[in-house]
Structures are given as C-alpha cells and as structure tokens.
C-alpha cells in the first residue's frame, strides 16, 4: 500500500513538471492568438519584408543543411566505427560548438575573417562571409554540423558493422559497401537528423547576427527579422514571424515522430 502511494506521488510530481513545461508552449500560442487578429497577421505575412525573410531563411537553411550533411555523415560514421588514438579528444572537441553560445561561435568566426591573414584572404578573395548572405550559411553550418554529427553517430552505432564486412566479402569496396548497405540502413536516422538540423538552422540567430549582421533585406532571416521588428516595436510582424517559426517547429516534430515511430521514410 505504501509502495502504491509512493508511485502515485511520484507520478503526480512528474505530471506537474510536464504540465509546467507544456505551459511555455501554450503561452506562446496564447500570446500569438490574443495579440493579433487574422487580418493583421495575413498582411504581416504578405509584407515584402517577411516574404524576403522566409525565402532567405529557406534557402540559407537548406544550403547549410546540405553542406552539413556532406561533412557530418562521414564524420559521424568515422566517429562511430574507427578506433584511433585521441578519439575521445576529437569527440569532446566537436561537442564544443554545442556547449558554446552561438554568439560566441559567431564572434570567433568574425574575428577569424577580420583579423587573421587566412580569414582576410578568404573573405576578400574567395567568398565574402562578413555581413553578407554566405555568412548566414556559414553561421548556420557551424551550429548545425556538429549537432548533425551528434544525432547521427548513434544511428551508425546502431547498425551492425558486420553488414559492411559481409558486403565486402561479396565483392564491394569500402565506399561501395557504405553507400549500398550502411547508408540505406541509416536513412531514417540521417533524415531525422537532417530535419532537426534544418529546423535548428532556420531558427539560428546568435552566430548569424554576429557574423552576417542584421541588415534589412540583405541578411534578414526570420529570427533576425523578428529581432529587427521587435527593436522598432512592430509587434504584428514579430508575431507573424513567431507563428511561422512555431508552425515550422510543429511540422518538423510531426515529421520526426512519423519517421521514428511510423516505420521510417518510404524507400
């Protein structure tokens, strides 16, 4: 009887915690719905500035995610499979950008491109990152690439390495075995990681604002547009952007859950 009471008290406490967390989300939706009426929202949504921010965000986040995948898939694979000296150190190092505030990451990138010979050469002669749109992609890439590695390493950990060994005895080389066996087996996890990384890139603010700046109609992604609108007290536009980001977050979560619990993405 005592044990039953203990469990009930524990469950009650857990329920309160869950409700408390859920309240944050409800508060955001509530704020959005009481503050703005549909017509204001529609006009804010259709405003040139918000449209520009949506397009820029979609393009930069997609490019950053694709670039991050190109690097993160092999990196996560190596981190999962290979045994080498200093692996723990590398593992810890690539976690740093996750623990670091994005604004610090952006500052480090800004200093690199404005104060080091290599950085200045790249920024002047190859591709301009500082206060330009490519800077947004780089800022997003810096934040999400390590996140993608973190998310994908357990996916590769969960795939029996013996599948690749069997593939090799069947006449396929190392890369071929990876492409034909490991990658298809990892596709759900990789896709899930990509979706989350993409969502994180869309919401990236700290590193972006530091490296690419907050210039209207130039480096104005959705979070920066929200920041700029809040700074001039244009709450209608800010709220429209919050609702867009919210809708995005909900869609991403639904897609991720569908992949995780709904039997994966179709072949």
């Amino acid at each position: 009887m005592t044990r039953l009471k203990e469990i009930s008290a524990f469950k009650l406490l857990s329920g309160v915690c869950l409700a408390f967390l859920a309240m944050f989300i409800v508060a955001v939706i509530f704020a959005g719905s009481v503050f703005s009426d549909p017509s204001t929202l529609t006009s804010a949504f259709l405003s040139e500035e918000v449209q520009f921010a949506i397009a820029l965000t979609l393009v930069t986040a997609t490019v950053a995610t694709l670039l991050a995948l190109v690097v993160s898939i092999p990196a996560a694979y190596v981190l999962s499979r290979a045994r080498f000296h200093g692996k723990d150190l590398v593992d810890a190092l690539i976690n740093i950008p996750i623990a670091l505030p994005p604004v610090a990451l952006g500052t480090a990138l800004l200093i690199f491109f404005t104060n080091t010979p290599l950085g200045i050469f790249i920024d002047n002669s190859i591709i301009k990152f500082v206060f330009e749109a490519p800077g947004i992609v780089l800022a997003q890439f810096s934040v999400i690439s390590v996140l993608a590695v973190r998310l994908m390493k357990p996916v590769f950990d969960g795939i029996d390495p013996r599948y690749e060994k069997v593939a090799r005895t069947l006449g396929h080389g190392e890369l071929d075995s990876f492409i034909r066996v490991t990658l298809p087996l990892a596709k759900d996890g990789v896709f899930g990681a990509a979706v989350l990384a993409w969502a994180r890139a869309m919401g990236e603010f700290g590193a972006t604002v530091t490296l690419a700046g907050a210039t209207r109609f130039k480096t104005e992604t959705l979070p920066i547009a929200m920041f700029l609108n809040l700074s001039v007290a244009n709450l209608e536009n800010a709220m429209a952007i919050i609702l867009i980001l919210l809708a995005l977050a909900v869609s991403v979560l639904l897609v991720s859950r569908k992949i995780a619990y709904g039997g994966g993405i179709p072949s």
Partner: protein
Amino acid sequence: MKNIGLDVPDGECLALVGPNGSGKTTLLECIAGIRQIESGRIEYNGTDVTHLAPEKRQVGYVPQDCLLFPHLSVDQNIAFGQRNPSADAAKQVKEMMEWLGITHLAGRHTRSLSGGEKQKVALARALITRPRVLLLDEPFSTVDRASRTRLLEELRKSLDEVSHTLRLAPIYVTHDLAEAQLMSDDVAIMNNGAIEQVGPWDQVLQTPRSTFVADFMGFNILRGHVTSTENGLAVVEVAGQSIEGADTDLTVGEEVLAVLRPQTISLSLERDVRKPSWRHCQCNVFKGSVTGMRKMGSFAQVSIDVGFPLNLEMSSELVDELDLAIGSSIFAQFRASEVSFLRA
C-alpha cells in the same frame, strides 16, 4: 592468434571448433580479409592473398545469424554480390534459388523468413560470387535446437553438392561438437587463439594430442604412472588399478594422463567381455558401481566408480536392458586400443 597452420583441400569440409573466445571467428575474419594478420601467410590454391582486400579474395562468408541485408528483398540479397546487373545475372539468381530449393522465397522480405530459409538465402548470396573458399560462422547459433538438427542435415546435403560441384573448401565454425561432426570431414580444435590439433575426425578422436583437446572432446582423463611397456602395450597404474593402452614410446615410471572417450566404454553385468567383436582384443575390465545416470532421449550419460571415476555414453536401451540404477554393481569394459596417453 598464433601458430595457425591450416590446409583445407577443395571439396572437403573442415570444422573449426573450440570454446567461446578461442579465436574461431577471428581466424575466419582473417581468412575472409576483413581483419588483417600481423604475420604469416594466407594462400588460396598457391596464390598469396595475405594483403588482398576482402572484395578481391573470392571468399563466400555466411556469418552468424546470416546477416541478410534488411533493406533488400530475398532476390536483391542474393544478387548483391553480382558485378553487373543484367538479364544473365537475373538468370543466375534464379538458378541458384532453384538449386537450393528456395524459389518460393522470391520477392519476399527477409524479415518474414524462418531461420532455415535465412540460412539458405545467405548461402545463395555467398555462392553466387563463385567463391574459392566458403566460410560458415555458426550459421545456426540462433536457431532453436529442434529445428537445428533438420537444418543441419539439409545444409550438409547442400554443402556436399556445392563443395564438389563448385570445387570449393567450406570451413564450418561451431562450438558444438555434434554439429561439427555431422558437418565436416576434418576438424581443427582451437584454444586461446591457437590451433591445438587438426586432422580427420577418426584420428582426433582416437588420439587427442593435448589435455585441452581431450577435455574439450569430453574424454575421461586419468592421471597415473607407467608400470610396464611390452609388445606395444603400456600398463599405467591409476588409483591402484592397472590400465592397458596402446603405446610404444613411454618409459617405465613416467607420469602420464590416460585419455578415453566416453563412447568407447561398454558396461556388462559379468566380467566376461560382452561385445563379441572385442573378445579377441586386449581389453580392460574393471568392477565398479554406478554413481550417476541421466537419460537424454535415445542415449544416456552414466557415471561409474571403478576405483577411479569414469563417464560414459551409451544407448538408453542398453541402460534399460542392464537394469541400471544408482549403486548397481557393474563391469566397465574398454579395449586397450581405445586408450591413448599424454605426457603429464
């Protein structure tokens, strides 16, 4: 791993046996090339393949629990090892499936297959590449005991046909002796990363070369010392009793281990040798009593004490015939030629 010396002729199946952790799978992976060896050589038909990548070795590998690719269908799994997908390649897959009697599995998902079906698909997948060596790593480790016997017999038939038709050398890894005996002509016993003994089954069962092999094979191991050697026969005193065994190079007074297979001991209610074919042989006969007995279907394991303990295996029918029970007085009989000696 160390001191690995193995020679596997085409068309003959070799069983690699040993306890868990003895290095069987590691050795198989070295042969397949998915693990590198530090020193030594691996040759196929005189060609050195030691530093050849696994994809170039032409090795068929059927791993533990088969490892069929879960994202591919049965046909796609079998066709996986083919170089160029073509109409001819598709025909080869069909022929291979017909040969192994699995055409009904065409198009099926690997998840829906039974243990035996998976095993045949894995075998087909390995054979389609026309390998020179076929490596089977405990292919039935996850199959229940009842189905295993039937599957083993089916595989044995397929292997016999496959190894002779394709002229390849199958190496079968298991820790189950009965399974190994059913599947292979020769046996190699591994312990601690080394091969303790290799040879035809008869030879290994007749004369185990080390205490480990004798122990692993379940032999009775009796410690004693040599009291006489005469006419190719050695007499060894064990716990005050004299055991005769065939040997020529022992010296009187030497400490030895007499080893004896449980299946070679017969029981009788009388001192006279029971088996007619043994009557003209040099036979050891000891009086003792039954100390333990366990019937396992058609055969039984019996423990007796004849001044020293002996374990033996016999048919349950004979146990009933002799009306054996714990404490029964009995004569243990075994031929001197079945006793071999190891230096202690």
